[in-house]
């Protein structure tokens, strides 16, 4: 199984409140905890007794919490989870923690600019998709040949990881989803399949 399993953290308090998180953090909701358990149980089925040879997580709280629940569910030693700063969510800079209404109230002109240059656009003090895609690509290239590999990270970051893996164009990457009720298996042939819990 030369596959990478790519998971997003479970629902958080700010996901529910529709606030951008970026590098800020809030805890998982009860639903988010249950999503993490369900992903762990499903992964356990899929792996069918095989232990992952590498398990990476974003160091941000919501991902590390999700990774821990998933690791416990598949009986993988949580001490062996490797936290990688390259897997942190795209930061929206000054917009981290805001909802759409607050962004429009404070930054409407900048928000409108975004439409024209979405791929290279960075919010004030934030990161662009282009920048995040570069670090995701470096991370993927640097991965040792240790399969199965598990990665637990974030909504936007996982989109750019899938984009790099599948060699997608910018506009295709923006179309990708950010599910919390399942995860992606990245296949060696640079395709992916969604595994619903």
């Amino acid at each position, binding site marked *: 199984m030369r596959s990478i399993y790519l998971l997003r953290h479970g629902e958080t308090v700010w996901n529910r409140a529709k606030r951008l998180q970026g590098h800020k953090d809030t*805890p998982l*909701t009860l639903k988010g905890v249950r999503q993490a358990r369900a992903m762990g149980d499903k992964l356990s089925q899929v792996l069918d007794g095989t232990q992952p040879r590498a398990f990476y997580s974003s160091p941000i709280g919501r991902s*590390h919490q999700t990774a821990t*629940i998933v690791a416990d569910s598949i009986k993988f030693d949580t*001490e062996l989870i490797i936290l990688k700063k390259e897997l942190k969510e795209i930061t929206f800079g000054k917009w981290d923690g805001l909802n759409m209404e607050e962004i429009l109230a404070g930054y409407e002109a900048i928000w409108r600019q975004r439409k024209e240059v979405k791929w290279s656009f960075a919010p004030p003090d934030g990161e662009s998709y282009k920048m995040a895609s570069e670090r995701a690509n470096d991370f993927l290239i640097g991965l040792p040949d240790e399969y199965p590999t598990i990665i637990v990270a974030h909504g936007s970051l996982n989109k750019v990881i899938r984009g790099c893996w599948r060699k997608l164009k910018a506009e295709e990457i923006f179309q990708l989803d950010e599910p919390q009720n399942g995860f992606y298996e990245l296949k060696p042939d640079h395709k992916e399949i969604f595994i619903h819990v």
Partner: protein
Amino acid sequence: MSATIYLIRHGETTWNRAGRLQGQADSPLTLRGTQQIEAVSNTLKRYLKNQSLTFWASPLGRTQQTAAIICDIIGIDFEHIKFDERLKEITLGSRDGYSSWHALKNDFPEDMAKREEDPWNYRHPKGESSQMVLERIEPFIQELELLSGTHVVVAHGVVNKIFRGLYLNLNHSQIFALDRPQESFHCLSEGKVATIEAL
């Protein structure tokens, strides 16, 4: 004394499981930790009878995560939690995150001998003594008593021991002897402390 306080410790963390000292450093809840808190919340819900309550928590990650689960189960909005710095765990300063008590004793025998002489006032380098924790918890309890009503408080092993010790007017060795359960919690009311089993 007219406040009723439900005092809860966070669920098991990966460092609790590994015997690592946390202090004000932090690690995520284990799967079991999340299950403990679901059980605690379901039991707590039976004790709360639609009365209005104030929800307090330590701002550290493990207590925020614990509080988020409890809130969803008992029907409180997470945004209404009052995070209070005074509820943070005792810090062991530069020893926060140390691999175990055993390792600490091996690596710093002189420090640990000093601790033996006066454990209540002992401070790890840059850390807090139990007395210092008591001094930040005491005004917090007084505040709740003044507010009266029902309060849920989510905090930590050592903090919750000192909290109960203050409430019951225990001496230092009695406080050290208290337990730090994660599958039960305490109800502090009318000068008494009751243990409520959740599992």
